[in-house]
């Protein structure tokens, strides 16, 4: 059974598009990444899945049941972590957890204690004193405390320091090994590559591609930034390595988008006398710029 299934899901706000024709299937037990630039429609899609907003057309189903627009018992199976977290300022973290606990019939508090310890969260403080990171931890605990079958997270890593972010993804992977479906949106490629089985890419409200992570476009790309001392190479020379351009603000610096294997790339770069070299993986924004901007301009929506 699919944990999440959408068919022709669309949302318009008046004449403004939210998302258009989202067809998505997330199998039970998958870790599914949902990536796209800011404003692409990730949060709108998630809100549609949760019934917080109603679709203009199309349908969303969770565990085979239509998403109820007015809420309902189906939500007992779901844990949700929004990107921006705010809670009642009159409460402490513990009050909030007790409030959340009151909506479920939890057998024991051991799991909540474990989450609290692993995320290094102090629940005794007042909500209004928590930093953004601590609010996020509180949100994660309350979303996982009832051991949901599906966890939906919107930009889960934002606001968390690297150690806690790693711990969070460890927890999510452990839950997944127990059969829990994880669906999360992000614009951090690293999070996708580390954890996801499959990924969907969204841009301008439309799904561009859905597939396994190792088929993610741009995984073979490298971004080279280098400064060449002495005589400067010709454009033709650099074009053998990849798509090269001078960096206008920095004379003698070049930025090259290369698809060469690393060994070949290093060999080719070694022929130059370099004052500076940085080789990095492209960011999600860079992948979208390099791969999808031309496609969209040509009127194509998919590389599939």
């Amino acid at each position, binding site marked *: 059974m699919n944990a999440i299934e959408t068919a022709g899901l669309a949302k318009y*706000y008046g004449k403004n598009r939210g998302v258009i024709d989202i067809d998505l299937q997330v199998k039970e037990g998958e870790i599914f990444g949902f990536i796209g630039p800011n404003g692409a429609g990730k949060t709108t899609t998630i*809100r549609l899945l*949760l019934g*917080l*907003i*109603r679709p203009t057309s199309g349908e969303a189903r969770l565990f085979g049941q239509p998403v*109820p*627009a*007015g*809420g*309902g*018992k*189906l*939500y*007992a199976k*779901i844990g*949700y972590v*929004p990107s*921006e*977290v*705010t*809670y*009642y*300022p*009159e409460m402490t973290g513990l009050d909030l957890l007790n*409030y*959340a606990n*009151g*909506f*479920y019939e939890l057998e024991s508090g051991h799991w909540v204690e474990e989450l609290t310890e692993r995320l290094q969260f102090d629940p005794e403080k007042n909500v209004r004193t928590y930093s953004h990171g601590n609010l996020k931890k509180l*949100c994660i605990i*309350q979303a996982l405390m009832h051991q949901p079958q599906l966890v939906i997270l919107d930009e889960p890593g934002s606001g968390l320091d690297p150690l806690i972010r790693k711990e969070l993804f460890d927890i999510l992977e452990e839950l997944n090994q127990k059969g829990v479906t994880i669906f999360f949106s992000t614009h951090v490629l690293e999070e996708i590559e580390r954890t996801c089985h499959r990924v969907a890419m969204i841009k301008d409200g439309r799904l561009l591609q859905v597939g396994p992570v190792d088929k993610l476009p741009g995984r073979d790309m490298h971004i080279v930034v280098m400064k060449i001392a002495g005589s400067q190479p010709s454009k033709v020379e650099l074009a053998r390595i990849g798509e090269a351009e001078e960096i206008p603000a920095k004379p003698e610096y070049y930025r090259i988008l290369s698809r060469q294997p690393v060994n070949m790339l290093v060999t080719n770069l070694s022929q130059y006398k370099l004052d500076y070299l940085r080789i990095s993986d492209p960011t999600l924004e860079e992948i979208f710029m390099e791969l999808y901007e031309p496609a969209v301009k040509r009127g194509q929506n998919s590389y599939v």
Partner: protein
Amino acid sequence: MFSLNIIFTEVRLNKRSLLIWTAVLAIVILVYLSSFTFMEEMNLVEMIEGYPDIFTTGLGMGPEMFGDVNVYHGGLVMLYGLLLASIYAMMLAGSMVSRDSDLGTVEFLYTRPLTRTTILLSKVLSFLIMMLFLWVVAYLFSAIIGRFWVAPDEFDLGAQLLAHLMGLLACLAAGGVAFAVAPLINRVQGTTSVAIGLGFAFFIFNSIGNMYDPLRFVKYLSISHYADLTGASSGQVPAAGLIVLPLVFLAGVAIGTVLLNRKDFTD
């Protein structure tokens, strides 16, 4: 149908404002009701009789008011008490709904295994509990000051109970109006503005309706008219109010439920 978890939490989240407004209402009762003897001594009846009828009826200050502690309390003290209490009732009901959109707790509350109808009805029930507390305290306070201090022989506890019941029903009706409009408003500040505006509008509609015969119809738009505190405090049962005010409350809750179920929770 209801979530005890939400009911208790809403009471808890709003207890500070409830205590403050209850204290304000109690102070109004204390100051005004304890002034009755003083006003009696000032021969205010004769003075009021000298004012034009349009003025005294508009402000609900007829000469009979200063000769009878029950009419004075119901018709004057509670009239202004109702103005305050109805504004608070609308602020409370409105903020209970719009606070989640304003604060950003929609994503916490509206993704629980509850229907939106259950969430709203639970908030309505906690509103009922808080209004009951407010008016019970107001009645007890009035009874203690009136019966044991101001007019031990004249203060009619039965008639005042009826007047306070009408005050409670008027506040429920005001809350019903707020529950109906709150799903359309995403900011607590917005519901507060509506509450203050409507509270004064109800008061002014009743005054204008009593002052000018050609505009008599506007008083039928006012909860103060249906509460008929002057009549209730002199022992007359306001039959129209007993029907209209609960109906307004129920209709408001029903409209609010429909609107909340159709609402898109965007950012």
